[in-house]
């Protein structure tokens, strides 16, 4: 026979039990619950059960892996990665503007800031216009209606910002490729023997490095694609496949998978192509 439905007061008390465990009840609610528990045996037992279950679900029991992690090392690695990523990420235009604004004293209200910026743009345009007009060096001047002073278009300024972005993206890509190359060279030529098992290779470091490179690639995928370089895109895709294979190997891996990877690297001439593409990226990054 099923148990009869508990009275309303008991249902309400039971709904509040987990909240009591988490200290999320207000003083009056906590007091009301306490007095109910003292007067109702069934709810008293229920509270003991809930409390016991929630206390048992402690992180150390549920996530045994957590205790085994060297969190100091993890912190260090995370901070290093974040700082490196911060150095490599070029500041976005919107962020730069926001930083510019936020550096202004708070006494300037937002509309005042916008008005000041507009005024600065107009002044800059007039100054540039008056500077360029006498020599006639710029033919792209837009005549103002009424034939008075012209305004120099901002396109050249935007173009130079675009060129700079392009250069930074190329440098980042070149760095990514040369780091990947160093890893592959190590894998192809100088893999350390595993101390634990005869005939196996210790690739724990290469695995970790592969993971880092994959993360970097994911983080900067947009920048790489923005370069619209088909050769680079194909190379990065093939490189990603090799890095994923390395990351999936055991720390102490047999010779066969390493041999297969070496064959793939040689067959696709990945090292040679990395050299060519990197050289081209570096050359173009220096020229533009």
């Amino acid at each position: 026979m099923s148990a009869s439905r508990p009275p309303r007061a008991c249902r309400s008390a039971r709904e509040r039990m987990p909240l009591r465990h988490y200290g999320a009840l207000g003083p009056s609610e906590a007091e009301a619950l306490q007095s109910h528990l003292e007067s109702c045996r069934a709810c008293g037992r229920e509270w003991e059960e809930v409390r016991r279950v929630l206390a048992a679900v402690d992180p150390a029991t549920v996530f045994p892996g957590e205790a085994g992690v060297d969190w100091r090392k993890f912190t260090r690695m995370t901070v290093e990665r974040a700082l490196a990523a911060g150095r490599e990420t070029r500041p976005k235009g919107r962020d730069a503007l926001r930083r510019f604004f936020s550096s202004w004293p708070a006494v300037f209200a937002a509309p005042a800031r916008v008005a000041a910026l507009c005024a600065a743009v107009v002044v800059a345009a007039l100054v540039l216009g008056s500077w360029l007009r006498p020599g006639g060096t710029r033919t792209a001047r837009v005549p103002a209606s009424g034939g008075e002073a012209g305004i120099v278009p901002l396109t050249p300024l935007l173009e130079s910002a675009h060129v700079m972005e392009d250069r930074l993206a190329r440098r980042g890509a070149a760095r990514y490729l040369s780091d990947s190359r160093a890893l592959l060279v190590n894998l192809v030529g100088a893999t350390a023997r595993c101390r634990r098992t005869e005939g196996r290779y210790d690739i724990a470091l290469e695995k970790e490095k592969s993971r880092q490179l994959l993360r970097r690639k994911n983080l900067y995928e947009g920048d790489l694609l923005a370069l619209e370089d088909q050769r680079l895109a194909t190379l990065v895709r093939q490189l990603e496949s090799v890095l994923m294979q390395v990351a999936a190997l055991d720390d102490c891996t047999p010779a066969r998978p390493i041999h297969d990877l070496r064959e793939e690297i040689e067959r696709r001439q990945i090292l040679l192509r990395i050299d060519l593409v990197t050289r081209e990226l570096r050359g173009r990054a220096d020229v533009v």
Partner: protein
Amino acid sequence: MEEDDFALMQGVQSERPGAFEALVERYQRRLYRLAFGYLRHHEDALDAVQETLVKIYLARRRYSPRAHPFTWASRILANQCIDQIRRRRVRGEEPLDQAREERPGHDAVLLVSPEKTPALQERRELGRLLKQAIFTLPPRQREIFMLRHFGEMRLEEIASARGCALGTVKSSLHRAAAALRDYLARADPAFRDRAPEEETP
């Protein structure tokens, strides 16, 4: 006295030396537990936490103190975990199973080897049972439970992070606690004797 999370996040935004490191130290374990709740895999959870913290650093200037920093971090983490799950599906990787889940300590770079004692075995068995119980909860209920129990977030913050009413958070916690109790009573009648006795604060 320990600096509060908002002040710490402000320190990260203004690039105060050591602020980001302190934030990583403070959040990494809580984020790991939440990530584990989504991914059910130790190494994937560590990867997700690291990615999330790097993203937090890169997006630090976009943070607005309207939300608690951990609420903001938990949203980034949830998106990161969803991305990882999606990528896993696209790449046709093996589905998550108990065997993979029970393989902590695989990553030699980050992990130290645990001791193997009878007490540890028993603890592991209890952990396995509790994990099973948690993963039988419906996804939304489980998420809310994980955010409160392991993420130690306030109920209002959970409601804000998950975009639901405060009442939903409260009722989900109640249902989750009842479901866990029922599951454990069914799966292991001796649980009552094994569970801790001490009073919680």
